[in-house]
């Protein structure tokens, strides 16, 4: 096995800001508000917190541990990390299969999520520009048309390319000088911009209708309306926890692989979650909905993607200082998306570095080219068919919803059930706070895997019964639209490619022990 000197994080604060940046993304500010609004406000928050406590927090510890253990062996990608955890009990040959599947899923997620995630980051950058230059200020053009014109104009893809180039530049500089340095600047700014926008949101008064105020908007979000609570909203809440904490993607483990062997996991993982929830529940929940409610009333807050890109520009164009606050809002979205996309970008650069011996700077250029190629269908489709996002919807349905949860299940089953109690020792080694044995048994070995299995079964049954999650029903996902079919073929092809690549990678790293089917390489 080749020995390479791995870079480490420069400081604990830098690590936490980078990890929080990894978790805090578009999901916190763009996805969470409309998820909460569409799924019954306060009623959505109940399953949301249940999923956070019983799935999100345990899985976060598991992913940190997979990464720290894998990093000790020089691995920054998920396949070999899962292989290491599974090989004692399953024996190397069977562990190879589990590792290849996990690595393949992570490979598909970091490539395909970015086919649309980076596009949306490009939109936020473009809309920052539009806000500051008064690009949607003309009341004669509806903000729906502004948005459709924006995504329908190929020239605006320049913002996507600029965002990708900035990501590539940051990753090229490495862990400390690149990722950590950018997180140290962007993360504090996200919180500062968020607080400024909250103050503005809560002091808007009732500019349109005396019954519409920001406080009424907050009341909507936080009143537990249990009549609106159904299985679909519980599924949406659980999916949101995966998405917001960047779980089931391999990228938390990738960042954790740059920890030192005796670094803390429990306190750091806990703080990452707390900072993410601060950004999501407090900042994300107190900006978009109260603002939209004050100007547009209860009917204006239920839109999906449109809440950020259609409803809020409609508000900013009518608000005193709207150009300025609109600029803040979209720049906040850009920073949040950027600090997560950088983690996915780094995952692929680490894969090229570790599996193919390609140096970081060249790897960053290769990933740049790859992201341009996989992002093209998402960018081109609405320029050919006005407003159409069938390809994006198909990719998001499988990768953004299903793959994350399946990968999360594999990780927690491998740690909790296959590695067993040894996992508790690994997590606690070097940690400032120690997980008690009862917590490990109850949460990591029982609650989280059982709930995730329940989620997956429920998801299939719910969809088969005609239900829709995030507006996606089985019928429209299985439609014969050429863009939908193309999206699904690409998803399958990338997954298969990922499994094959990971299989070869693990075989190359552990040839002897797989041939003998006995564990030979052990680092304490």
């Amino acid at each position, binding site marked *: 096995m080749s020995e390479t000197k791995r870079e480490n994080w420069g*400081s*604990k604060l830098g690590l936490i800001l980078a990890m929080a940046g990894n978790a805090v993304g578009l999901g916190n500010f763009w996805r969470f508000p409309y998820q909460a609004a569409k799924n019954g406000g306060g009623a959505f928050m109940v399953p949301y917190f249940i999923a956070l406590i019983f799935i999100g927090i345990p899985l976060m510890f598991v992913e940190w541990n997979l990464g720290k253990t894998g990093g000790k062996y020089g691995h920054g990608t998920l396949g070999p990390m899962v292989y290491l955890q599974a090989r004692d009990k399953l024996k190397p040959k069977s562990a190879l299969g589990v590792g290849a599947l996990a690595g393949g899923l992570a490979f598909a997620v970091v490539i395909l999520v970015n086919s649309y995630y980076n596009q949306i980051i490009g939109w936020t950058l473009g809309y920052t520009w539009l806000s500051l230059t008064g690009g949607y200020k003309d009341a004669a053009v509806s903000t729906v048309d502004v948005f459709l014109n924006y995504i329908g104009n190929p020239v605006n893809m320049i913002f996507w390319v600029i965002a990708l180039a900035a990501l590539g530049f940051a990753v090229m500089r490495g862990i400390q000088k690149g990722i950590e340095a950018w997180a140290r600047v962007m993360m504090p700014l996200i919180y500062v911009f968020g607080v400024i926008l909250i103050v503005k949101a809560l002091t808007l008064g009732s500019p349109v209708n005396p019954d519409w105020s920001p406080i009424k908007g907050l009341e909507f979000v936080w009143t537990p309306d249990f009549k609106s609570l159904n299985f679909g909203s519980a599924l949406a809440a659980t999916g949101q926890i995966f998405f917001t904490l960047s779980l089931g993607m391999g990228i938390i483990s990738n960042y954790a692989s740059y920890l030192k062997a005796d670094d803390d996991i429990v306190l750091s993982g806990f703080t990452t979650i707390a900072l993410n929830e601060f950004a999501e529940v*407090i900042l994300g929940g107190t900006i978009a909905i109260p603002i939209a409610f004050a100007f547009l009333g209860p009917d204006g807050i239920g839109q999906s993607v449109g809440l950020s890109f259609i409803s809020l520009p409609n508000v900013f164009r009518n608000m005193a200082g709207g150009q300025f606050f609109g600029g803040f809002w979209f720049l906040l979205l850009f920073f949040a998306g950027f600090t997560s996309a950088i983690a996915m970008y780094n995952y692929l650069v680490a894969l090229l570095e570790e599996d193919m011996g390609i140096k970081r700077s060249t790897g960053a250029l290769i990933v740049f080219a790859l992201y341009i190629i996989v992002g093209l269908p998402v960018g081109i489709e609405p320029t050919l068919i006005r407003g159409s996002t069938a390809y994006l919807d198909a990719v998001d349905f499988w990768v953004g919803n299903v793959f994350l949860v399946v990968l999360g299940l594999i990780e927690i089953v491998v740690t909790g059930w296959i590695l067993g109690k040894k996992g508790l020792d690994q997590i606690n080694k070097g940690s400032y706070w120690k997980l008690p044995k009862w917590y490990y048994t109850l949460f990591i070995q029982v609650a989280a895997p059982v709930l995730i299995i329940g989620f997956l079964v429920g998801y299939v049954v719910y969809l088969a019964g005609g239900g829709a999650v995030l507006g996606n029903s089985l019928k429209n996902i299985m439609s014969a639209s050429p863009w939908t079919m193309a999206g699904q073929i690409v998803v399958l092809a990338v997954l298969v490619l990922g499994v094959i690549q990971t299989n070869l990678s693990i075989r190359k790293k552990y040839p002897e022990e797989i041939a003998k089917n006995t564990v030979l390489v052990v680092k304490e």
Partner: protein
Amino acid sequence: MNSSALIFMLGAWILIIGASVVGLRSLLKHSK
């Protein structure tokens, strides 16, 4: 704002702010 919404919101906010402060303070203490 009705009282159940206010209690739910403030309860969640206090827990999250508390967890963030405790987490960050403990980490900074250990990094000295």
